[in-house]
């Protein structure tokens, strides 16, 4: 599904912040990406999402050489990936409902075709009564759930979550993790970037990708 071979990244003429990164994410797999703050977790997720180009190495996404794709093909690949951003990235002028429905809307779907599905998902993440609220009014936890719902609404083949429990209390964090595990059971590969050890301990079967000093260490 995702394959990195000797990928390196540097900004400008600086030192490499990611060095010789090689790993694969298999279909229906579950992994935590961890490491200290500033280790490059978000950068690695952005590389998977093709919003950054590596300075060297090979990246393959869904069996295609990601570095030789045109923009239309990149858009196609991104449509198979759901993303949960650490800083939410909700559109402040759209309601919670409209934000969650955004991935479907940009695919050109009529609202009537997804209304029930979006409403149901919002209820499932506990935002059924916050559908018409604009993001600035939502709490951190509610924003986090809205972002997760936005990532899940297209039933992605791969889910990338950057510190998804960073802004929520432990109880909600457990609920969100259950959400991710349910998603994994339904066939989605999940990558959760976190430095929350307690969260990782709740899911024993997960692979751990640990970033440190720009290098990746894998613990199966």
């Amino acid at each position: 599904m995702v394959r990195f071979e000797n990928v390196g990244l540097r900004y400008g003429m600086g030192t490499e912040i990611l060095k010789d990164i090689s790993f694969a994410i298999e279909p229906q797999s579950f992994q935590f990406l961890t490491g200290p703050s500033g280790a490059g977790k978000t950068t690695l997720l952005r590389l998977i999402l093709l919003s950054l180009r590596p300075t060297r190495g090979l990246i393959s996404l869904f069996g295609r050489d990601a570095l030789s794709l045109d923009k239309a093909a990149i858009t196609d690949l991104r449509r198979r990936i759901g993303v949960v951003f650490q800083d939410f990235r909700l559109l402040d002028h759209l309601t919670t409902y409209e934000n969650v429905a955004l991935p479907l809307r940009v695919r050109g779907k009529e609202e009537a075709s997804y209304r029930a599905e979006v409403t149901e998902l919002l209820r499932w993440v506990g935002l059924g009564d916050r559908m018409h609220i604009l993001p600035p009014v939502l709490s951190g936890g509610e924003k986090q759930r809205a972002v997760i719902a936005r990532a899940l609404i297209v039933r992605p083949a791969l889910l990338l979550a950057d510190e998804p429990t960073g802004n929520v209390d432990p109880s909600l964090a457990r609920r969100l993790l259950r959400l991710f595990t349910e998603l994994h059971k339904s066939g989605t590969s999940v990558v959760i970037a976190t430095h929350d050890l307690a969260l990782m301990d709740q899911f024993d079967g997960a692979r751990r990708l640990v970033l440190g000093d720009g290098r990746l260490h894998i613990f199966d």
Partner: protein
Amino acid sequence: MNMFAEAWGRVKAILGVKSGPGIGRDQALVPASSIAGRALVTVVAIMTFLASLAAGAAILIGDASSAWQDQVAREMTIQIRPTAGRDIEADSAKAAQLAEKTPGVAAARAYTKDQSEALLQPWLGAGLDLSELPVPRLITVSLTPKTRLDATALRRTLAAAIPGASLDDHRLWLERLAVMARTVVAGAAVIFALVLVAMVLAVAFATRGAMAGNREIIEILHYVGAADAYISRQFQRRFFRLGLRGGAIGAGAAIISFLALSTVSSWWRATPSGEQVDVMFGDFNLSPNVYAAIILIAAAVAILTGYVSRTIVFRHLRDLT
């Protein structure tokens, strides 16, 4: 039927018409507050107003010039210069007769001695005895609208029969009028083009500003799987609406200005200066062409505004790495 439904769907999306009851408000993805909308509407309105004035003036001058040329081309003048040993009265009558017999001539009217002298009054003043002056006689020849007159043949006939007779077909005036009208229309076209270029540049700057202000929204749209064409359409939709509003205001102001000008000119018509304006521009009743042109300009401005913004956004996104 499906094609029609799809096309209607696109039109509704551009115009922001909501399809059926829904929870989403069909809220624009590019927020109105992120674009200098009021300033752009004002600029577009001013540009549309100026472009409409230029186009209206060009049509007005073009119509008036055609009217002048028609009027002048429907008449010719025979001039009989006094020649020693010849009866100028008889020559005038003969020239009128010869002209009337020529195919294409509707009527020929010879000016009498008194009428000819009266024509000189504006230059020489009244109350003078002009009997000693060799005042030429004029015969105005009205032409039939459809039959073409052979001016060369008539000129030759007159020269053979009456020494001192000459035919003026007003060609020089016609050419000067045509050149003047063409110059004015070309000037208006240049102004029109400059105004449009200035408007396109204003829209381009506004679009770039909007893109800079919406960088994060564009990034999010990319992440959730929006294609470049989709994002460009969002900007096009927003700018089309702004262009439509600005165009409507500018065109409305231009139509009101022309209507006001028409009303004022009708008040002045009875005065001597009004008569002069009438001679220059006709009765100032603007043809429906002017109003149609203004409405067309407003529509074109809206479409152009949307198109320019979409093109700029699309190019910018294409160049993003």
